[in-house]
């Protein structure tokens, strides 16, 4: 009989495998996925991949156009900015700030938010209804504005901006996990699991968690793209990463006066933001559809 079980495990793939299969069957989502992976690899190898130090100023080569212009050179593929810094190197190093910062803030706010939301839902009662009203109020404020509020209190700077974006993202995670856990706890299968003798911990781990995975994963991807945009926007407003740091948003801000004479200074970081947000959103969309497929099969 044990032999049977092993065979049959192959015959009926696990939920995770089913989602992965559904996801990988769509070309566009796979392209987005691999783009994202590529960006993560670039982020981790940015020290090796960047041809120059992102802060190094080539004083005799200010505002060098990209290589496909007549005056451009291959050594500075995407040209240089007003201080003679290599733009390609700065965009590559910028992945650590904009993308890395976004991942960091989402992971931390996700863990905190989901923990609070889930515990509140499991406890129920008065506390949870207070939480609900509080959250509704906070969620009426966009995460970017919330982050700006935090910066207004704590002052500008990269560390503050990370903290601010983290705080700005927490309410969404609380709300999503709180609602999802409450919805699952009301189901008949939880009632039956209780009668089967599941302890609260087992109930959470084996019944609730697998059933809230879908909204949580989707919230994580949505939060990731909004974190990239928030970090870039705050950088652009000069509230986030400060002057020499190659954060994509602040790179764009520094190039804004040169928009007409040297558009490449602003274009490449803009494209980097666009591609990362687009691929994150597409991956999220793909996951969402894969989960939907699961329901309908």
């Amino acid at each position, binding site marked *: 009989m044990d032999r049977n079980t092993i065979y049959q495990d192959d015959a009926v793939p696990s939920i995770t495998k089913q989602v992965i299969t559904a996801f990988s069957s769509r070309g566009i989502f796979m392209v987005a996925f691999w783009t994202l992976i590529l960006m993560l690899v670039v982020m981790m190898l940015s020290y090796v991949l960047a041809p120059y130090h992102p802060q190094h100023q080539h004083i005799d080569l200010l505002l060098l156009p990209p290589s496909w212009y007549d005056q451009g050179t291959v050594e500075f593929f995407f040209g240089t900015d007003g201080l003679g810094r290599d733009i390609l190197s700065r965009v590559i190093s910028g992945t650590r700030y904009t993308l890395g910062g976004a991942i960091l803030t989402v992971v931390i706010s996700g863990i905190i938010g989901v923990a609070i939301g889930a515990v509140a839902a499991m406890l129920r009662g008065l506390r949870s209804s207070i939480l609900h009203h509080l959250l509704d109020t906070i969620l009426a404020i966009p995460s970017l504005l919330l982050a700006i509020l935090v910066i207004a209190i704590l002052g500008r700077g990269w560390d503050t901006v990370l903290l601010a974006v983290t705080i700005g993202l927490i309410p969404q995670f609380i709300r999503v996990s709180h609602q999802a856990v409450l919805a699952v706890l009301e189901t008949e299968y939880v*009632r039956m699991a209780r009668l089967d*003798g599941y302890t609260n911990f087992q109930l959470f781990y084996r019944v609730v968690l697998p059933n809230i995975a879908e909204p949580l994963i989707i919230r994580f991807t949505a939060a990731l793209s909004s974190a990239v945009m928030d970090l870039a926007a705050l950088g652009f407003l000069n509230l986030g990463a400060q002057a020499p740091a190659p954060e994509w948003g602040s790179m764009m801000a520094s190039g804004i006066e040169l928009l007409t004479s040297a558009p490449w200074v602003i274009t490449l970081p803009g494209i980097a933001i666009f591609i990362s947000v687009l691929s994150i959103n597409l991956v999220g969309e793909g996951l969402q559809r894969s989960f939907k497929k699961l329901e309908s099969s």
Partner: protein
Amino acid sequence: MQTPLLQVKHISKTYMNPKGWFRREHVRAIKSLSFELKRAHTLAVIGEAGSGKSTLAHLLAGEMEPSSGDILLHGQSLNDTNKRQRCMDIRLIPQMPSLSLNPRQRVSTQILAPLVQHRSITHALRQQKLYGTMRDVGLLEEHANYYPNMLSASQRLRVTLARAMIVDPEVLVFDQTLSAMDITMRAQLINLLTKLQQSRGMAYVMIGHQLSMIRHLADHVMVMQHGEVIEFDQTNNVFKAPASDYTKRMVYAYNELTQGSNG
């Protein structure tokens, strides 16, 4: 005289609904209800909506404690101290079998859940029990690794049956389980339940079912109204000479229907 398997003695249940900030509304869902049930016998419970039938199911299954009164199994009172064992001896088959299965867990895990929780038995024995029970309720071995959405409605019901029966319960409580089913499924199920009752000696409490089912399965019929028993008799007698208004109307409608379809 032998003690009956299940004895329910003067149980009552009062819900206290918070109403507004300080006031509470008391709902007396069951007022002093008693009955007995023998091994391998079936009791049908019928009554209008809101008469307390589901509350009775909750109380029997151990989801909540009665406000007063006693439920005895083999003459032993069931209460908080033996709650775990009691949840294994009296098992509930829910109204919507499909909704009562976790969509993210394999069938085998769900059927085995009560066993894993309560008994330290070997893996081999557990597997043996799993496949034995699945066979008894008419499932195939390969269904064990399915997820609920891969099964038909009737197979899902069988899974909930298997999950209830894997701990060898003495009483099964069906809370309107079969009312939403089509006729072929119901017929299959009547046969299955009769067979299981004979082979395992389980007693059934069947709540809120159609008279056609009751006629086939039940030994006794209990009629409830406003949390009280207004009629309790052998099935034959109830059909021949219904006592209460509610039952009279039901039986009358049932006879109209069956004679209509015969003639």
